[in-house]
């Protein structure tokens, strides 16, 4: 499938819109090509390729809404899908929360597409796998990994004059390295828009080193420890916090952002004053589309500033109910870092734990944003400023809100899962039991 240019996409969307007889009509068009390779036991296991495209029509009569989708874009198909959406809308119950389509919007130009990523071949993927498998074999280590690359575009049009277009590429890579005696395990995650920034040998070697260093971990007592969290660890908890910045559930009294006696915590200080979190679709390290699926422009937005809640997300309906401007959900999260290097963080720790990542994180209590989960793939004991030995994995029960209140220091930012997150040191992190898992 071709990745349509803005002109090609617009032509298809305008044609489809010309068939509309509804009060309002909004049409989204998207397509992507993606390929992947998966390996385990130091050999390739499966690999695949998929290509898809889709056009979604949402037609409305008053507050009655219908949607229909098609993957063929000739004139007859376009007319058919518009008629289907209209038929569905006529049959639907009224949605009292339906908001009419937005008018024309101004969007910033996104920086999300990379030709290099769009041109990845099956041979390149095999080469990436090889760069894990060969060095692993040489060190008595077994590699299991996954590379997934994709290129795609999104466009939308509506009957109120809005048009938007974006194309983007993505690469996600993870590899787990396990020592052949079964006592050590290391892991890395890397993600990019532009695959030319990806160094598969560096990633593989980092994971191999962690595996070797984490062999024969010792058991130490669970309890409250100072922890140094690598960005791939803290994102597990922080990502869930970002995903809960919803004004409506806060206003309804069913969120950690609900204030006592009604209302929400906008303007309240909820975490350490060194915590600053914002979103920015134009950040060169973590770019995203500059508009969302409803056609709302995405701009740089502050969420937590000096520990104070600056914004909560308001969808258009809830914003109207509350008489405020809508605030779209963030498409990425950027947390301000600090000057301290990882080495200095370790040097300044009398007794603590270095955590590579968290695993199987699940909500325990949405009221306090309490989560449980485990450390995995490289957990190390620090004493008097030095890494002393690997330790067995812990189960934790902790809330990101408590964690960010117990902040000790911030380090360098790293891209992880499309976000920019710093290394951080946190005191009194709650580990509640030990796990024998490697």
């Amino acid at each position, binding site marked *: 499938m071709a990745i349509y240019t803005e002109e090609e996409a617009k032509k298809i969307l305008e044609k489809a819109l010309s068939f509309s007889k509804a009060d309002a009509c909004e049409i989204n068009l*998207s397509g992507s090509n993606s390929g992947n390779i998966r390996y385990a036991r130091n050999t390739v296991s499966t690999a695949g390729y998929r290509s898809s495209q889709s056009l979604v029509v949402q037609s409305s009569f008053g507050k009655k809404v219908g*949607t*229909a*989708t098609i993957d063929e874009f000739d004139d007859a198909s376009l007319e058919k899908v518009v008629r289907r959406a209209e038929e569905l809308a006529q049959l639907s119950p009224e949605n009292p929360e339906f908001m009419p389509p937005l008018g024309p919007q101004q969007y910033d130009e996104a920086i999300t597409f990379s030709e290099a990523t769009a041109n990845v071949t099956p041979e390149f993927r095999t080469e990436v796998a090889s760069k894990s498998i060969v060095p692993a074999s040489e060190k008595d280590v077994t590699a299991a990994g996954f590379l997934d690359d994709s290129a795609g575009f999104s466009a939308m049009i509506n009957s109120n004059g809005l048009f938007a277009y974006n194309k*983007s590429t993505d690469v996600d890579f993870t590899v787990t390295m396990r020592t052949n005696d079964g006592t050590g395990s290391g892991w890395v995650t890397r993600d990019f828009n532009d695959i030319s920034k990806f160094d598969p040998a560096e990633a593989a070697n980092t994971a191999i080193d962690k595996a070797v260093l984490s062999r024969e971990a010792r058991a130490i007592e669970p309890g409250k420890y100072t922890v140094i969290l690598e960005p791939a660890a803290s994102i597990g908890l922080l990502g869930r916090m970002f995903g809960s910045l919803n004004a409506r559930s806060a206003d309804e009294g069913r969120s950690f952002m609900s204030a006592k006696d009604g209302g929400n915590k906008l303007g309240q200080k909820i975490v350490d004053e060194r915590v600053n979190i914002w979103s920015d679709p134009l950040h060169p390290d973590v770019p995203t589309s500059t508009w969302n*699926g*409803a056609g709302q422009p995405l701009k740089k937005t502050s969420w937590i500033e000096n520990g104070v809640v600056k914004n909560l997300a308001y969808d258009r309906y809830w914003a109207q109910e509350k008489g405020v401007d809508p605030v779209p959900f963030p498409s990425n999260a950027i947390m301000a870092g600090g000057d301290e290097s990882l080495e200095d963080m370790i040097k300044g720790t009398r007794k603590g734990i270095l955590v590579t990542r968290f695993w199987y994180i699940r909500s325990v209590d949405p009221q306090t944003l309490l989560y*449980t989960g485990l450390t995995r793939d490289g957990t190390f004991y620090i004493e008097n400023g030095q890494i002393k030995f690997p330790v067995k*994995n812990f189960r934790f029960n902790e809330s990101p809100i408590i964690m960010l209140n117990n902040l000790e220091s911030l380090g360098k930012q790293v891209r992880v*899962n499309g976000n920019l997150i710093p290394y951080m040191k946190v005191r009194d992190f709650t580990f509640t039991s030990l796990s024998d898992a490697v």
Partner: protein
Amino acid sequence: MKRRSFVQYAGMGAGATMLMPSLLMGNEIPTEALLEPGMDTVLKKQMADVALNTAKSMGATYADARIGRYLNQYVFTREDKVQNVVNTESFGIGIRVIANGTWGFSSTNDVTEDGIKKATQHAVAIAKANSKIQKEPVQLAPVESHGEVSWKTPIQKDFKEVPISEKVDLLLSANAAAVENGANFVNSSLFMVNEQKYFASTEGSYIDQDVHRIWPTFNVTAVDRAAGKFKTRQALSAPMGMGYEYMDGLESEKLQGPEGIKLYNKSYDIVEDAAMAAKQAKQKLSAKSVEPGKYDLVLEPNHLGLTIHESVGHPTELDRVLGYEANYAGTSFATLDKWESKNFNYGSDIVNIVADKTQVGSLGAVGYDDEGVKTKKWDLIRNGVLVNYQAIRDQVQMIGQNESHGCCYAQSWEDVQFQRMPNVSLEPGTEKYSLQDMIKDVEKGIYILGRGSYSIDQQRYNFQFGGTLFYEIKDGEIVGMLEDVAYQSNTQEFWNSCSKICDKDDYRMFGSFFDGKGQPSQVSAVSHGSSTARFNGINVINTGRTI
């Protein structure tokens, strides 16, 4: 923070957008289009043969083709509003080949001779490219050639024939019952799935199957604004491999639990459950916070199912044991040496756990798996000892067996099939013993119902589970509700502490509708049956915090 958002669904309500993206696979279609017949089997056979012949002509030593039409209907409501009704259809073909001893896979929605040829060529090309770094050439266990056969979920009411208005009315009635009984908020939803899948392979099988599943569920919230607290109570329904008849709410399928609780077997009364949920959510706001310590746990089937799933289902998947899932879900503590010893005490001697792809009404029931193997039932744990794993054609020979267990599955035509969990269930106790008998026999315990928070490590040793409802048991009687409860244990210790299992009259199924595994991740649906069981001296923690 979902970056992969090329497909932006403008029409989705809040309920839908919170779901896994895979739920939304397929094209949206009008309700009546669900009833349109798909491609007939004569044509499907012709198309499948195009793939098989193309693969063979390019040097593949094995090929299979799956032509799938996946029809889904989802209804989402909150309080007195319908948020969304979604109908989707997905149609296409997935082709898997072995060339140079290596797997290759490709899929396309262009189900024409030309489209299928191209996809097959792509699959063979991938296999050949990857064979350069292949160290373990694929070996397939023999399989019977079935010829042309078919299988259908035994349903009484096809969801596609039930009007949308009837489904919407039922959910809104449940919401109304919750609100009347004190709920501040209620979200309810109904998921209905029909997989029409046609499988053909170079082994000489042409298999046509029609699979149905359903899951009604809700979440009720009670808020105490003055105290700044809220509590939720989820539905006590189970997703089932049944038709719309599951929604009939038959009295004959209800069991009476303690504290006025109604429990549901193969028929669900959503309105009654929603009313009960609202009362219990309010009760939870003032329930006693648990004192941490050791308790005897009495675990109801709708809760125990998830514990079975995580602590027995996943660790006995052979691909995990062998390391194929090491980079994502993890490996397993149930290693081959433990199985080979024939005396690894996974649980106490009353623990018998079976894998089953044939159980009527279960989510995993099919006639044949997604590589053409006839399904069956087999033991995983017998008298407490680990006796077998779950394995498919390309792995079962690694444990010295020459017959696949028939548990290969792909979530759609566009994904490659791999080993997925069959129904994994705890057999009921053999002596007459009811839930009431069990509660009477507990001095200091907690009765736990329904699904809650669940987390387990990547080798399945250490887990922590919550639940929906918790009741304190003292000296053989329930004395009140508890909150802030979670239990932590080690899988082997936990199953060895199993001291009693209720009889078959208490047996019910729990289900997981969206179990995730693999990279790229795929969902599958699986049931776990059990009777209420008791586990002695389990560590309970208090999860209450202040922020």
